[in-house]
């Protein structure tokens, strides 16, 4: 009897407590955004843009309507005039990316795991970091000409820096506790690198990969303004000469789509490789 009655009082009291707590509680941190709501901002911009075009507030000579651009893009895709340019751009961006990521990781490993490596490499990469990629264009044109090699080389050097910096920092930032553990377990240097150093640096490497994927397209835009007959940048540049703003918008949309797609791809690979981090998830 007493148990039941006291239980009821307890229940009533706790109810009142939660009620008053809810009334008084202040949200210090915004609640989690439901899936898809992130697209609200872009959607509003698109609607306003389209409306402004249709109402005649935005002249096609200044900026084409999104619907016009999508229609143009679709027509270019169907008549086959878009794909060769897309292929040319992708080939440049991704060969530069692959070369840059591989070289960046190898340099970071040499510099992060050996003293000689750090003495030889780190200073050089830091200097390269301070020099804007675009400032190298004149010199690289003299060395490599104005062809594909020059473009791939410049993308490669642009990508290399963030990959090196982040991977190197991750390697140097290894948990000292894990290093001590490796020593007390009697790990060899090879075992330490394979089981402790590399997996420990993997999150840093993925950060660098996402930067690199975005960067290879950024560098490409500028480079495709230099003496090319192919590529999305070339298309946009030619469209400027002819005042075709709809093609310029098509180019911008393609760059945005490729950037987002590449980033999503890296995120998926990252989530798989670092699945141990999500083990506790939500």
């Amino acid at each position: 009897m007493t148990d039941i009655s006291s239980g009821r009082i307890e229940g009533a009291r706790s109810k009142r407590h939660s009620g008053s707590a809810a009334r008084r509680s202040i949200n210090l941190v915004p609640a989690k955004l439901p899936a898809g709501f992130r697209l609200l901002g872009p959607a509003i911009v698109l609607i306003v843009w389209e409306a402004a075009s249709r109402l005649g507030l935005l002249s096609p000579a200044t900026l084409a309507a999104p619907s016009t651009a999508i229609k143009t893009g679709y027509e270019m895709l169907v008549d086959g005039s878009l794909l060769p340019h897309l292929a040319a751009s992708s080939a440049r961006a991704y060969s530069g990316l692959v070369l840059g990521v591989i070289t960046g990781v190898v340099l970071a490993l040499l510099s992060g795991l050996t003293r000689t490596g750090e003495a030889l490499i780190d200073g050089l990469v830091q200097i390269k970091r301070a020099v804007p990629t675009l400032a190298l264009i004149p010199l690289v044109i003299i060395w490599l000409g104005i062809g594909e090699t020059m473009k791939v080389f410049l993308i490669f050097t642009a990508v290399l820096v963030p990959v090196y910096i982040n991977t190197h920092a991750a390697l140097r930032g290894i948990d000292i506790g894990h290093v001590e553990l490796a020593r007390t377990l009697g790990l060899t240097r090879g075992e330490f690198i394979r089981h402790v150093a590399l997996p420990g640096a993997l999150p840093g490497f993925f950060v660098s990969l996402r930067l690199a994927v975005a960067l290879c397209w950024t560098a490409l835009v500028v480079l495709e303004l230099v003496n090319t007959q192919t590529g999305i940048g070339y298309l946009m540049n030619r469209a400027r000469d002819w005042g075709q703003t709809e093609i310029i918008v098509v180019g911008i949309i393609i760059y945005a789509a490729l950037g987002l797609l590449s980033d999503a791809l890296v995120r998926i690979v990252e989530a798989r490789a670092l699945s141990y981090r999500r083990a506790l998830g939500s």
Partner: protein
Amino acid sequence: MNAHVTNAVVLRDLSRSFAGKTVLDRISLDIPAGQFVALLGESGSGKTTLLRALAGLDDDAQTKGHFNTPDSVSVLFQDSRLLPWKTVIDNLTLGLRRPDAAPSAKAMLHEVGLADKTDVWPSTLSGGQKQRASLARSLLRSPDLLLADEPFGALDALTRLKMQALLMRLVEHKRPTIILVTHDVDEALLLADRILVLKDGQIAEDHAVSVPHPRRDHQIEITSLRTRLLKSLGVETDSI
């Protein structure tokens, strides 16, 4: 000391200083094989430094004197130090070159009550489970010397009692030499054959605890030593 007993750990005038500050001051010590030694001392007394010296850590310290330890030494850290990117069993077998590493790791996980956690990520374990996995990793190496640095210090009181019992059960047969750094006088009294009190980098007191196990049944006999140890650690217990 008995001449027939071989010493597992021998320290002769061992001094260690960090950037000019002396932390261990000419410590000489013999620990017979199989003895369970608890190292007590206030913060900064040098107990962890002594343990880490025996574990071969802290290269940056200036060391004088010398010490001998067995070839097979295992360290049990206060934090479990499981690698988050390796499953529990891969953490246990890390660096083991024995062909039977995997089956004996499984058997060891069974011993510590983690048989169903073999293939999970360490981040899914509770604090007590992590420390049990860490203990399993240490004992899997059948060490002659087990160095434990406050291994149960971060656990709640109930889990700590369970871990202490587990440790005693697991070392019952092979009887490795154990040095346990702790700030818990009761833990020392419950587990150790010998209690050393460190003060200012020197061994200030050396007590043999001859009370038989299980000690829970011999509370009265250890009470006077308890009071004395607390007093030498600067704790007056008269009022409680």
